[in-house]
């Protein structure tokens, strides 16, 4: 039996003016388990807290109820006071007789009656409280960043600068990501490579950063502060320690027909290749599907020409296992496939290209060496039409329901760059809305119109019609003119919707990080915790969380880094003791709880149990207290009542219900 103390606060007149506080205290003494009751002017004051401490010690109280303001206000205060007096802080319950009673009722008799009931409910609950201990778990002071684009690089740099070890895992042979494929960036029009390359170099030179390129995350286990990750380093067929990056192998490689990923398949590369000149690490990989040696067993030219003897055809995939305290996902995006939008003739004409392909066409290192030309015949275009919202804002399954956010700006950028470099080329943009929220963004767009004479037409394009003479006929709406336009063009550029990198689904599953219907990772709170996943210790950086441009990506990358640093800076993590707990004798092992847990905190173990003399191995749910946030979803999903929530147990809540309905 508990010995409970009840402390009724007057809160000056805030409570006492409407509730007969001494009556509440008096009634409390009639409740089972109550050994002490008193009322006082201000329970939260030092004097009030001293009264509580004194009663705990003098009367040997095992639990207390404070009838006062909302627990959201002073629960922490009273818990600390109890702890100082030697009582477990979780033996404290608050009856909210101010916000939920005295402040909303006028009639003293009625309010007093209600206050008594609220006190009774709290007493009934405390009777069933048990002392709880906040757990501790250790923190591995190392972070993993998945994805080596600008988001991953920035996050890694920020974490490393704070003094923590960071590993970057990048799937492709080089870090750099999408940004390395861009020619110029809005709204300042500086060269993408010029601002990105120094960051790439900084990351590779940073003593706290290890970069694993051509590598993928294979397996993740553990939890916040203590993840264990297997990383697969795919066989590069080139010894990274020996290679000097001289590039002779690529020159001499006789197999040059593989489509260049970096140039979006617009031209080809050799079988042994670095994706682009500034690649980091500057060590090539052999594409074994394209390599003659691997396909036929004959060739070996690269090995013969390599002075450093770095070519290693025997190299195998390697698995590295590493421990991390925090994981940042920065897996980025790709453009959607356009095979269901052939009204724009993308698959029918080489001169219909995506914006990302245009970036490569405009880039000096691209397939046309930076000359704006038609990919069909190499002729200089005179009329270019841009079509926005291709696949974005789409209600059916052909495209994506969201706004891809970056297209309006890069289209303005492309239009402006073309008009600047080739003033005799006419540029027309078909748009639905021009969305330019962002610093200097609308000014930028207006500059494209006013200074560069880009022709913006409000209306979508219905069909692109390739003509026998090689030109393209663009049939679109001019909604402001209420006209249907037929415009002849030499090139058509599609502002293609972006989508999260398709691999993210696999990664999210490994991390038990939740993902939305569009495959964007879900944030812990849409407004207040935008860079954290609901799964503790997992942070989100860049477009994997939602469409964003470079400045936003970098800002979010920094924010994710700060959150990761905040975690790594702790030696130990205190865990919330109000977590779920599974009774192993009642658990059926049915997985219902696991299916509703938003944190992946529930796993199953085959465990030997002793059920009243019957020894057997059973599949039992186990809650990881470091991951559990205490929502209670599992407790209701559990049919047998095996799963219960500490601090809000089934019996405690039922006791409250009973006390209120008594």
């Amino acid at each position: 039996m508990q010995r409970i103390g009840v402390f009724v606060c007057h809160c000056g007149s805030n409570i006492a003016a409407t509730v007969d506080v001494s009556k509440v205290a008096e009634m409390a003494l009639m409740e089972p388990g109550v050994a002490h009751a008193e009322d006082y002017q201000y329970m939260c004051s030092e004097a009030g807290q001293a009264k509580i401490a004194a009663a705990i010690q003098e009367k040997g109280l095992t639990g207390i109820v404070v009838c006062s303001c909302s627990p959201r206000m002073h629960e922490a205060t009273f818990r600390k006071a109890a702890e100082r007096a030697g009582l477990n802080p979780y033996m404290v319950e608050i009856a909210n007789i101010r916000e939920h009673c005295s402040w909303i009722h006028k009639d003293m008799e009625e309010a007093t009656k209600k206050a008594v009931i609220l006190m009774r409910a709290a007493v009934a609950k405390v009777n069933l409280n048990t002392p709880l201990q906040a757990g501790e778990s250790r923190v591995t002071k190392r972070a993993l960043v998945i994805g080596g684009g600008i988001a991953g690089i920035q996050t890694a740099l920020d974490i490393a600068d704070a003094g923590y070890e960071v590993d970057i895992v990048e799937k492709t042979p080089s870090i750099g990501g999408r940004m390395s494929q861009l020619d110029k960036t809005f709204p300042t029009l500086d060269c993408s490579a010029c601002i990105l390359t120094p960051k790439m170099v900084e990351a590779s030179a940073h003593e706290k950063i290890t970069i694993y390129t051509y590598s993928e995350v294979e397996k993740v286990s553990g939890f916040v502060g203590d993840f264990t990750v297997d990383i697969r380093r795919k066989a590069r067929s080139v010894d990274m320690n020996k290679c000097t990056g001289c590039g002779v192998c690529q020159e001499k490689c006789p197999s040059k027909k593989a489509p260049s990923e970096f140039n979006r398949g617009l031209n080809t590369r050799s079988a042994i290749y670095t994706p682009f000149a500034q690649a980091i690490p500057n060590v090539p990989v052999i594409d074994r599907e394209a390599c003659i040696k691997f396909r036929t067993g004959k060739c070996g030219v690269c090995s013969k020409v390599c002075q450093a003897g770095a070519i290693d055809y025997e190299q195998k995939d390697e698995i590295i296992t590493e421990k991390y305290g925090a994981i940042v996902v920065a897996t980025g995006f790709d453009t959607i496939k356009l095979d269901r939008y052939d009204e724009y003739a993308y698959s029918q004409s080489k001169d219909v290209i995506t914006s990302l392909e245009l970036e490569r066409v405009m880039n000096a290192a691209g397939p046309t060496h930076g000359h704006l030309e038609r990919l069909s015949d190499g002729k200089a275009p005179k009329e270019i039409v841009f079509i926005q919202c291709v696949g974005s804002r789409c209600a059916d399954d052909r495209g994506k329901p969201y706004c891809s956010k970056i297209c309006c700006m890069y289209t303005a950028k492309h239009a402006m760059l073309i008009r600047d470099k080739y003033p005799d080329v006419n540029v027309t943009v078909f748009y639905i809305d021009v969305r330019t929220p962002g610093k200097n963004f609308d000014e930028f767009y207006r500059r494209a119109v006013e200074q560069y004479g880009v022709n913006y037409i409000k209306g979508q394009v219905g069909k692109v019609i390739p003509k026998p003479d090689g030109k393209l006929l663009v049939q679109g709406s001019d909604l402001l003119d209420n006209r249907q336009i037929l415009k002849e063009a030499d090139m058509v550029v599609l502002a293609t919707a972006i989508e999260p990198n398709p691999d993210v689904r696999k990664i999210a599953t490994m991390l038990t990080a939740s993902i939305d219907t569009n495959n964007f990772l879900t944030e812990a709170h849409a407004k207040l915790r935008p860079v954290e996943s609901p799964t503790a210790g997992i942070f989100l950086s860049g477009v994997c969380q939602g469409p964003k441009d470079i400045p936003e990506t970098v800002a979010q990358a920094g924010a994710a880094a700060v959150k990761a640093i905040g975690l790594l800076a702790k030696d130990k993590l205190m865990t919330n003791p109000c977590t779920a707990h599974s009774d192993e004798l009642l658990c059926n092992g049915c997985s219902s709880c696991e299916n509703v847990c938003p944190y992946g905190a529930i796993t199953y173990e085959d465990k030997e149990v002793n059920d009243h003399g019957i020894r057997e191995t059973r599949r039992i749910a186990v809650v990881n207290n470091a991951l559990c946030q205490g929502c209670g979803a599992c407790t209701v999903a559990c049919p047998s009542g095996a799963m219960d929530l500490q601090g809000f147990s089934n019996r405690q809540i039922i006791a409250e219900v009973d006390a209120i309905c008594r």
Partner: protein
Amino acid sequence: MKYSYYPGCTLRTKAKALDAYARASAAALGIELVEIEDWQCCGGVYPLGSDEIATKLSSVRALNEAKVKGQSLVTMCSACHHVIKRVNDDMKNVEDIRVRANNYMELDEPYAGETEVLHFLEILRDRVGFDELKKKVTNPLTGKKIGAYYGCLLLRPGRLLNFDDPENPKIMEDFIRAIGAEPVIYPYRNECCGGYISLKEKEMSKNMCEKIMESAEGFGVEMLTTACPLCLYNLNKSTGVKLPVVYFTELLAEALGVKEEIKEEVQAL
């Protein structure tokens, strides 16, 4: 291979050729087309109104008859295909239409979209296979540059008809290739010929068909082929460029070497 066959009204009158060549070709390919009994006209256009029931019943009757026989229902005319396929989709997926149509029909067992509706081209692609068809061609139409004219009804709405990519179809091109000719792709092959509008707005339809013809000729098409009697009629009314327009079944019969056998018969029709 035995199928229920729904010829449709026009194949009994102005488009007898489409029907006759189809039957001859089917026989040559070992496909048995069993004409369903007492079929009624599908109405030519799919009734879009969600409250239109009575106008869908003729299709439901045909569909149910195929169901009773346990056969797929084959169509030849684009319009019939469009209407019957969509009505079938309604019967399968739209409860309100299903319930109300069945109330009218008073069938032994309610019809709920069980029948599979196939266009003859789909039979050639998915059942016979174009590779197989190629082997059976005795008289390849080598050297002929043929443009497929799809029109609207076979392709759209793509999600419902599930016939081919509505914006970049290839079934008829593959067909043309299989019979030994050279398919020519031109962008207006899925643009409307004007359809029923040509009854009252002859100019409109003429303009549309001219655009189609011009585009086809520009890409080097020597002959157009279609599955729709109305498309054929409209295209033939085009006054500018004049390319010959033939039914795809006629090409098929020719390639299979059965055209001559029934040519006189067709001409006598």
